[in-house]
C-alpha cells in the first residue's frame, strides 16, 4: 500500500513535471531567441547609427590597419592608386612647371612598388602608402604638432598647424608623404588641400568618421577581383584582418625600426 502510494505519488509527480517541461522548453526556446535577438540587435542598431557622422571623439578601442597580400597584387594594375586619387582629389591636381619636375612633385598617397630579387628573379608587386606606425617618426620630428596620431591609430597631418617644414617627409622611412607646392583650387569637400602643407594616406578618414566600412583602395582592389588588400580593426580579434593575420605569415616593412606599423604585408 505504502509502495503503491509512493508509486502513485511518483506518477502523479511525473505527469505535471512533463507538462511543465514542455512549457519550460517553449519558454527557454523563446528566451534563447529573444536573447539572441537582444545580442544581435545592438550590433545592427550600432551599425545603422554609425552610418551617421561621428559625434563622439575617436577612442583607442580600435586600431585601423591594412593587410596587403602581395601574391594577389597584380603587375601593371593600378586600381588602388586610381581609386585613391579619385577619392582624395589627387587627380584634380594641375601640373605646374616642367613636366619632369611635376612627375616628382605631385602629391601621391599610394605608390605601386615592384621588387625583384636579383638572385632568383622573383618579382613582387605591392602598394606602398603611409604605414600608420604605432610610434611614427613623422610625429616625433614635427615641430608644431601638426603631424599626429589619432586615437584610432590613423597618422595624419593637421593642416591648420602644418608650417610646411617637411621634416616629417625626411623622417618617414617609407617615403609616404607629399608636399603641396602650388596653390590649389577645386578641392573636394571631404579632402581639403592647400599650398605649403604636407599630406599622406589617412586611411580615408572621412569614411571612418561617417561610419563607412572600408577604404577606396580596398574597394577598388576587390572590384578588380584581386582582393589583395584587407582593411579592418587590428584590435578586434574577430575582424577579418585579424583572422587573416592569424592565418597567413605577414611582415611589417622595415621591422628593424620597431615602429609597429598598421599596414602589414604578406609574401614579402
Amino acid at each position: 500500500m505504502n509502495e503503491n502510494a509512493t508509486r502513485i505519488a511518483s506518477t502523479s509527480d511525473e505527469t505535471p513535471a512533463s507538462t511543465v517541461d514542455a512549457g519550460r522548453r517553449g519558454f527557454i526556446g523563446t528566451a534563447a531567441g529573444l536573447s539572441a535577438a537582444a545580442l544581435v540587435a545592438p550590433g545592427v542598431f550600432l551599425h545603422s547609427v554609425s552610418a551617421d557622422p561621428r559625434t563622439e571623439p575617436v577612442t583607442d578601442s580600435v586600431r585601423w590597419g591594412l593587410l596587403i597580400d602581395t601574391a594577389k597584387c597584380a603587375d601593371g594594375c593600378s586600381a588602388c592608386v586610381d581609386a585613391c586619387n579619385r577619392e582624395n582629389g589627387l587627380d584634380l591636381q594641375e601640373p605646374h612647371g616642367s613636366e619632369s619636375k611635376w612627375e616628382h612633385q605631385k602629391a601621391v598617397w599610394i605608390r605601386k612598388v615592384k621588387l625583384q630579387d636579383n638572385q632568383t628573379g622573383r618579382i613582387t608587386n605591392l602598394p606602398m602608402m603611409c604605414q600608420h606606425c604605432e610610434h611614427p617618426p613623422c610625429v616625433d620630428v614635427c615641430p608644431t604638432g601638426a603631424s599626429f596620431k589619432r586615437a584610432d591609430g590613423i597618422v595624419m597631418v593637421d593642416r591648420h598647424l602644418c608650417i610646411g617644414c617637411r621634416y616629417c617627409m625626411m623622417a618617414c622611412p617609407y617615403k609616404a608623404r607629399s608636399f603641396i607646392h602650388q596653390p590649389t583650387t577645386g578641392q573636394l569637400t571631404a579632402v581639403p588641400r592647400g599650398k605649403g602643407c604636407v599630406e599622406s594616406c589617412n586611411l580615408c578618414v572621412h569614411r571612418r568618421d561617417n561610419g563607412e566600412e572600408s577604404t577606396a583602395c580596398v574597394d577598388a582592389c576587390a572590384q578588380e577581383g584581386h582582393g589583395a588588400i584587407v582593411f579592418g580593426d587590428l584590435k578586434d580579434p574577430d575582424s577579418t584582418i585579424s583572422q587573416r593575420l592569424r592565418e597567413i605569415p605577414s611582415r611589417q616593412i622595415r621591422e628593424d625600426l620597431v615602429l609597429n606599423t598598421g599596414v602589414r604585408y604578406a609574401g614579402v
Partner: protein
Amino acid sequence: MAKAVVRIGLVALGLVWGAFVAQTALADEVKRYVVEGSPAAERESCVEPTETMRRMHMEFIKHQRVSTVHEGIRGTKYSLTGCVDCHISYDENRNPRPIDQPDQFCGACHNYAAVDLNCFDCHASVPNRPGADAEAAHRAAGVVGRVASTPSQGGR
C-alpha cells in the same frame, strides 16, 4: 473733423504699407544669400542669431576644427561645409560660384572688412560632397545641373 480723421487714417495706412514693403524688400535682400529650400532658408536665422554669427562665426569654426581633425567629430552644429551648402549661389549656367569670390557671401563681407579669408585656400569653396544635406535643396531650387554630386566629377 471727419476729413482730418480720414487724412490721419490714410497716413497711418500709408506708413504701415510703407513699413511692410520695406520689410519685404529687406527680407528679399537677405534671402538672396541663402539657397532656396536649404535648411538655412527654413530658419529664422543661421545656427546662432544673426548678430552672433556676424561677430563670432570664426570663433565657432576655429575651436571646432580641433575636435573634427583630432577627434573625428563631424556631426557638429557649426560647420564650414554648412556655410558653403546654404550660402552658395549660382551663375546663369547653374554652376556654383566659389563662395570666397569678392561678390559672394563670404568674400563680399571679408572684402568690405579687409579681412583675409584663408579657409578656402584649402577647403572646398563650392559644394561637391556626395549626399550633401543641401543637395535636395539645390535640386528643389533647380540648380542641381552642375552641382557635382560625386567626387570624381567634383571641383574640376
